[in-house]
């Protein structure tokens, strides 16, 4: 289980590292930790993999990458690991996950994400990928995103009192709560 100090630290950096000459000292001051301790704890969490990456989080849409497609595939179970590993090495693929099939209504078990500047570019990249990665025999669907209803703010609270979510619909973290943003389920 994650230490309380680390919870508070992740919560503090969740909103973003200050843009200042000594940003870790600023964070440390808020938490009563030394600059060195902040750095060491973050480095350890990064090395352990709990922090999957530590750095600049870009906004694709603001950067002109407005076409976002989630591609779902029906890959034989004994091939899904190999195909997933191969796809995740492709430059245009951003995420690649295995998820459970849902019977006939949704037979897909492999999900990947492609961001591009236009639908045409994304579809071209997908067509190339299908051939390059030998996926042409597998069923798939391409799901372009349309409206974005919520992009962030699912700040996960370790101390959420309960799941009675309707009582706290603002999505605002309470003071002292440890909050985490998750990018993928």
């Amino acid at each position: 289980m994650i230490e309380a100090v680390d919870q508070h630290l992740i919560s503090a950096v969740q909103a973003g590292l200050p843009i200042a000459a000594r940003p870790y000292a600023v964070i440390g001051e808020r938490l009563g930790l030394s600059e060195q301790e902040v750095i060491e704890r973050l480095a350890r969490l990064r090395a352990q993999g709990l922090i999957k990456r530590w750095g600049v989080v870009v906004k694709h849409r603001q950067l002109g990458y407005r076409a976002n497609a989630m591609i779902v595939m029906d890959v034989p179970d004994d091939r899904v690991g190999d195909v997933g590993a191969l796809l995740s090495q492709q430059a245009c693929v951003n995420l690649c996950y295995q998820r459970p099939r849902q019977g006939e209504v949704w037979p897909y078990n492999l999900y990947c994400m492609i961001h591009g500047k236009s639908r045409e570019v994304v579809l071209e990249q997908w067509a190339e990928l299908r051939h390059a990665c030998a996926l042409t025999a597998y069923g798939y669907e391409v799901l372009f995103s349309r409206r974005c209803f919520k992009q962030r703010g699912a700040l996960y609270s370790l101390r959420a009192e309960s799941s009675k979510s309707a009582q706290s619909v603002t999505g605002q973290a309470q003071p002292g709560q440890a909050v985490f943003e998750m990018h993928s389920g």
Partner: protein
Amino acid sequence: MLAQLQPLHKHLLNDYQQDFPLSPTPYRDIAEQLGVSEDEVLHAFEELSAQRMISRIGPVIAPNSIGSSALVAMAVPEHDLARVAELVSAYPEVNHNYERENRFNLWFVAVADDEAQLGMVIAEIETRSGYPAMTLPMLADYFINLGFEMNLHD
């Protein structure tokens, strides 16, 4: 929009998504790596932040390392989509709530303390919306390099 970005901005956007320096003076370290002044780096990050091209410099937490999460999909009739989307977005446990072009047209990620609580949140959304939800937890993550690489030449 990208064309207006200077090379410095592009480097800052591309090169520091995985491992931002964990040193007392990270912005100065970056400045030295890129051959510019610390003030230029600080100023450029302020601009990128003000223009909302970056959401922050911070952590991305590994899925399911803290709590329990799942991708959830719902098939909602067009005329009712706005209501259901709003209902779903209001949950603090929900993020990345998107409309997608499919018969399953509402896709979101829900995160809770544990699997039981996650199930309760999704069940409540089903009850309140009146539509069933498909819960799609991650079974394997094949992606190691989660950053997003832009083409520096466009």
